[in-house]
């Protein structure tokens, strides 16, 4: 047995709603080459379509405030070898 290495990558898109609330969409396995133009396009699309709303009182989507990628590596050590 060898060590088991698990790598998890997540893309976190923080959305700001006009009631001051923020909600984050978390997507697994983001592409490595996401451009800021793509995020800008998504931001504009969300503003135009109002596809998501704040879940406290249905507040209108404001903008994407932050996009982060989170990479997490989990190593299960093989202590018996």
């Amino acid at each position: 047995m060898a060590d088991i290495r698990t790598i998890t990558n997540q893309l976190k898109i923080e959305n700001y709603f006009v009631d001051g609330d923020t909600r984050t969409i978390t997507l697994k396995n983001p592409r490595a080459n996401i451009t800021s133009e793509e995020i800008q396009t998504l931001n504009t699309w969300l503003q135009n379509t109002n596809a998501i709303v704040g879940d406290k009182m249905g507040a209108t989507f404001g903008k994407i405030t932050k996009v982060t990628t989170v990479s997490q590596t989990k190593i299960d050590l093989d202590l018996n070898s």
Partner: protein
Amino acid sequence: MADRVDVKLTAITPLGVKSTTNINYANPEATNSTLKALAQRLNQLTQNTYSQSDKVETTNLDFAPGGGIETPTLTLAATSETVASLKTKLNTGAAFAAFPATTITYDGDGQLSASLTYDSTDSSKFLGVSIMHDSSRNTTSLIVAGKADCAFPCTITIRAAATDTYKAAEVTYTITE
């Protein structure tokens, strides 16, 4: 709060494993094609293979106060009494506890009230009604007292108010000649 729509995005990861993302705050007024487009746009940011997007609708039933749906139990041990029987009981000079009474059973959380209706304009004739509630036993005693010589029949209506949990209920107690 109003109804809610969630979008459940199920994708297949590069390793062939199912991955589910819930977007818990989709616009309830958004069309299906908009929600589908949202799912596709988000999926394009990942290496996942697009699989499906489910629209999950949650309907919140906002009950106004007094809109409870549970039906409470509201019953009387006895629902009628005759004047003769009442007079007999009243004239014995018995202790208060021996007054003609019946037990109300109520398992809701509404307020109980009683009203008396009879066909008489003579205010010197009256029939008293009092309700005693024993919350520890969840029972209420209806005590019929006073001069029982008003016009008969008369009806005592016991009402339980509607609450957020329970519907309103009422029972009647009739005194006949």
